[in-house]
């Protein structure tokens, strides 16, 4: 098969996912598009030697993560590892100031799934809950729950050991449930029913 045609098919099949991940990383639509285009050109150059037995989506995500780190390094002229690589604590501090997360988000208050089911949260409500997660956890939660990547694939994408993936995922899920709890109380307070 013509390599370009195959590449086009792969990209179009995964375009929403790719752009979604670019948005998680950059947090700005214009930067996300720039990153996406950069990644497509990089990926096409390497596509000929891509091992067809592996998940192409995970492969593209990994290229995107690396491209993102390269860009940030160039732009800020200082390592960005701190935010993404070095532990959740620093990110927590950064995110705490930047986001509208209530302090309770950081406590271990998982909402029981029963509770969520019983109270008829919509799918969009759950999606919004994921969007509100601090970036470090949002990243692994999206890769797992929305993109369906395995722990091993996530580890390769974010460049961290599997143990880190599991702890971030576990924390991220708890935070998500807490965040949903939060959305529900907001809804109950305002009487809105769109969540």
């Amino acid at each position, binding site marked *: *098969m*013509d*390599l*370009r045609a*195959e*590449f*086009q098919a792969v*990209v*179009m099949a995964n*375009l*929403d*996912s790719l*752009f*979604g991940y670019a*948005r998680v990383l950059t947090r700005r*639509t214009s930067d996300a*598009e*720039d990153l*996406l*285009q*950069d990644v*497509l*050109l990089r990926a*096409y*150059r390497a596509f*000929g*030697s891509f091992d067809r037995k592996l998940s192409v989506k995970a492969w593209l995500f990994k290229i995107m993560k690396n491209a993102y780190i390269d860009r940030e390094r*160039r732009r800020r002229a200082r390592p960005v590892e701190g935010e993404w690589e070095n532990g959740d604590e620093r990110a927590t501090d950064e995110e705490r100031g930047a986001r509208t997360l209530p302090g309770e988000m950081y406590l271990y208050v998982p909402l*029981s*799934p*029963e509770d*969520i*089911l019983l109270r008829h*949260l919509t*799918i969009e409500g*759950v*999606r919004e809950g*994921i969007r509100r997660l601090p970036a470090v956890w949002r990243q692994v939660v999206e890769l*797992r*729950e*929305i*993109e369906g990547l*395995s*722990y091993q694939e996530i580890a390769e994408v974010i460049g961290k050991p599997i143990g880190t993936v*599991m702890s971030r*995922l*576990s924390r991220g*899920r708890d935070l998500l449930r807490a965040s949903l709890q939060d959305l529900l109380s907001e809804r109950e307070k305002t009487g809105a029913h769109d969540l």
Partner: protein
Amino acid sequence: MICKVTRAEIFQYLDGELSRGERAQVEAHLRSCPDCSRLVTTERAFRATYLDRLRPDPVPENVRERVIRLLDALPSRQSSPSRPGRLGRLGVMAAMVALVILGGILGLSVRDVWKGPNASVIQLADASVDQHQKLARGLLPFDIAMASPRQAEEWFRSKVDFKVSIPDLRSEHLAFLGGRISHLTGVDVVALGYRVNDKNVSLFVIPEEQYRRLGLSETPKFKVVNRRGYEVVVWRSHGTGYALVSEIGGQPCLVCHSPEEKLELTPAPAAHRS
């Protein structure tokens, strides 16, 4: 009750991340532990109701369109890993030109910061912009037009004593107009005209010897110079030198500078972009 499996293991079990042996252990525990069993049941319902139905947000339509354009303009390649000689070189060349041209269209950054003003490059850039304007206005007719890139290559082979590879980029957004033998700063070069998204782009192919006289460093690969509202990208591939001239999107420079005014050499067009 005190459970033999942890909550983390339950989640790994649900995620399908346990080995067969571990899975059997968890299942054995679930049969004897109502608490864990309930956790698994509700967690499964939660996933079936919400998580399994989550899809990535759809990409905005304008982004999708630009991606389709980018994909269409990628150089065609066969999946065989190695191609000998000339074809392989053309492939590399085409990929590079596509990269630079696309970079222009899409506002993409293929550029690294280029340090150090170099008089000969500025001269080359100025001359390229002059020629580009003349080509675009039809003041310098093409020696060969209405031809395929292959035919044009064939034609140049008998006319110049250096190798001319003409990228064959098939895309509705990019058309090869023709080529001519031209003079840039007293040197014979091949000038190629392209139409990219309704804008003219000129590519100058410079003999190796002349390119070397520019005294450019190997890195960064692409040297980008902004002159009079145009972006000139200079680079070398397999010995041959190239200068690519295209309009800076929307000509923002001309808003505050007259076309005649010599603009300062900018290391990267970032100042004009963001």
